[in-house]
């Protein structure tokens, strides 16, 4: 097997929950050695969050090691249990950082200050470190200590205001969306850019990813519309400013979709050719010539009517068959899939091998998100199961930090290591 491209690089992953650990997860998929620094004293909330693996009798497994939520974001990492509230714990943290190429965290500045993990502090022990901080608001500024737990980032960054139907309040999008791709992906991009700079100059640096800035930067045209045109746009459901029809349309129910029988097909017609083709597949080619619908301007003007009509034409159709027929005619269309589709029924995802399965000593066989970027010569892969809490404390202390067995025993007795 070929060497992975980031082999030889070491990451001190002092992060928790989603955005930080996922950045470490990507680096681990491509070969970096990632050491998750954590502690039972203040465990990553995801270790105690659903979904948990199940026992054969249908009950949930318990403990720190069986959450699919945590395990999916921490595959193949090493877990060091270290109490950073203790001064001695902080010293061990520094000794680890000395041996790392990257430092990664998404704790708030308040916690970073308590643990003495500011860039200025860790750069003293390792001037070549690339240190990535991903707090919600930023490391400085009047809102730096604002609480950002869970669901608050989505409303604060404008996603809630701009998403969903206009007749509904801005209640959000059902997940803590920015945690999973936008923030960790930006973080990794910046860390790798900093690595290139270090390769060329030998200099480390501080990479700060204020999640607020990271997400607002990807908020479509909403803020530029205000800055440039002085407008204050709001949500428009599934519609598009120019393309029409553009939305999700109800198809026949699928009783085999577990607790989710309603089926929908998303359709986006970007030009007249696609609309002509879609109308034909829907069995009403004459609609394309109908004065209400025969140009993008006409369709936008009569969009309520158009959507009602399309829904009436899709309601009895099988979603997968309708989607395939639209695609065969060149229309961008897709079934609104759920996880059962993605894991068990989507032949395309299976053919590409996106989900990868590993055996976890406590959770059992579990699916993981594979690397999204497929590299032809130096591919990444899910490197192994997520670590048990503290599984590698001895290994990391001895092999990487260079502590003796006596020192480790003392630190364990003092509760600095766990």
């Amino acid at each position, binding site marked *: 097997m070929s060497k992975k491209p980031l082999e030889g690089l070491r990451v001190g992953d002092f992060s928790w929950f989603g955005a930080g650990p996922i950045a470490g997860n990507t680096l681990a998929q491509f070969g970096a050695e990632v050491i998750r620094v954590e502690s039972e004293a203040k465990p990553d909330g995801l270790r105690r969050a659903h979904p948990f693996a199940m026992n054969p009798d249908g009950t949930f497994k318990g403990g720190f090691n069986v959450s*699919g939520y945590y395990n999916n974001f921490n595959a193949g990492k090493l877990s060091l249990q270290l109490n950073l509230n203790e001064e001695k714990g902080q010293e061990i943290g520094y000794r680890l950082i000395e041996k790392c190429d990257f430092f990664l965290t998404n704790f708030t500045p308040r916690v970073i200050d308590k643990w003495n993990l500011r860039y200025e502090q860790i750069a003293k022990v390792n001037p070549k470190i690339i240190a990535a901080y991903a707090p919600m608001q930023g490391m400085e500024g009047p809102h730096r200590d604002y609480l950002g737990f869970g669901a608050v980032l989505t409303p604060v960054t404008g996603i809630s205001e701009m998403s969903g139907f206009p007749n509904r309040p801005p209640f959000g999008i059902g997940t803590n969306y920015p945690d999973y791709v936008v923030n960790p992906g930006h973080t990794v991009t910046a860390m790798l*850019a900093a690595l290139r700079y270090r390769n060329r100059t030998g200099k480390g640096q501080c990479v*700060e990813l204020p999640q607020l800035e*990271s997400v607002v930067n990807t908020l479509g045209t909403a803020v530029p519309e205000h800055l440039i045109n002085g407008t204050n746009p709001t949500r428009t459901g599934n519609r598009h400013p120019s393309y029409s029809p553009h939305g999700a*349309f109800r198809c026949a129910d699928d009783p085999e979709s577990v607790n989710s029988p309603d089926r929908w097909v998303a359709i986006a017609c970007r030009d007249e050719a696609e609309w002509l083709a879609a109308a034909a597949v829907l069995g009403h080619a004459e609609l394309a010539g109908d004065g209400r619908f025969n140009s993008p301007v006409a369709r936008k003007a009569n969009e309520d009517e158009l959507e009602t009509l399309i829904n009436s034409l899709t309601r009895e159709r099988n979603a997968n068959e309708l989607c395939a027929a639209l695609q065969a005619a060149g229309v961008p269309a897709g079934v609104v899939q759920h996880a059962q589709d993605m894991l068990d029924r989507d032949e395309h995802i299976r053919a590409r091998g996106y989900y990868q399965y590993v055996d976890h000593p406590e959770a059992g066989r579990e699916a993981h998100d594979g690397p999204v970027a497929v590299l032809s010569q130096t591919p990444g892969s899910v490197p192994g199961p997520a670590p048990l809490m503290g599984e590698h404390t001895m290994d990391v202390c001895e092999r990487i930090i260079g502590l003796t067995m006596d020192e480790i025993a003392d630190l364990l007795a003092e509760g600095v290591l766990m």
Partner: protein
Amino acid sequence: MADRALEGVRVIEFTDEVGSYCGRLLADLGAEVIKVEPPGGGRQRHVGPFVTGFENDADASLAFWVHNTSKKSVVLDLDLPNAKETARRLALSADIVIEDCPVGYLGARGLGYEDLHALKPSLVYTSVTGFGQTGPHANWAYSDIVGQAMGGIMTLAGEPTDPPNMIYGRQADISASIHAAQGTMIALLHAEATGEGQRVDVSAQEAVSMSQETAMQTWDFQKKNRTRTGETGSLPLKLPGAGTLKVKDGYILLFIIAPAGGDLPDLLDWMREEGKQDDLDDEPYRTIIGNMNMGWLTQLMSNPAEAASVIQHLPHINEVIGRFFAGKTAREAYEQGQERRLLIGIVSRPQDLAENTQLRERNWYVRFPEAPAGPPVEFPGPPYRLSETPAVVARPPRLGEHTEAVLAAL
């Protein structure tokens, strides 16, 4: 002037809606990114919204601007033999090619991965498409909402009785581009170390799918589909100190009962200071407020009789809290609440973000002294701050602005 992280890296991109943001990330970090556009420009230049007064001007689409900062623009008609040859020479002058064309489109023009890799083995060739380069759906037509649908995130968003909701901002395209940027950086570092180039293949469907949160693992472990729950969210009923709340000029999100920051009694203190506590200091409200947190609720729900005795009082508590916040603007509720360590989020509208205290104090917004169309403007800044090699957001190019200069230097 500060150093640039991607100094000396040349990128040629053949991208429209899906892959543009990947090129933008590299451009803001200092790479020279040359966008090859068809005559008249791609789709992105023709969709709204536009700068007011410049409607349907290919240089004035804000949808184009937000994904194409800091780039150069060269116009080439890839259906003409001469232009194909020019595009080939351009691509071979680059370290990285980024493309989001239908599978096979560039290959048919001598610009495919195999064609270019054979001539320049160190080239990184990144393809960002709806469904990737392989598999039975590789040739499927794609637009952002299709990726959001097929990638499993729409089914989680919206009221159960409504159609599934799309997330605003072309998030399938954004996710694909961000994953492509990571893969491209890994491949670039590898090429610089070893001379070996490669293809980077990104599917937007896969790129957005990690944003299903726990849905994938819930099916994997428990064989249940997570469904959309709308305004109620994951909570079984409307709880004091949780959920979306209407205020004087907009909305806020309360999550005070979460295990972070202050709790409901701290909110009651604030209400009392402003004389708006009403009867919440009386029983049974006082005790309920004192107990209310996620752990207590879970316990409560296991005892239906006791739960019922509490639940009957929640609407009144909700109402008094609602009245308190209804007297505040969203920004007041957010900033005053957060100063008290209460977990409150503003539901920011675009104007709130433009005026956001934190973003303004940290000088996040940048200025384009010369915009591609219209007067000078302010614009959102970069997603990250690098201390030695800052990302710099420079204005997007006008269509074909650099054709002459780039081709003359070729």
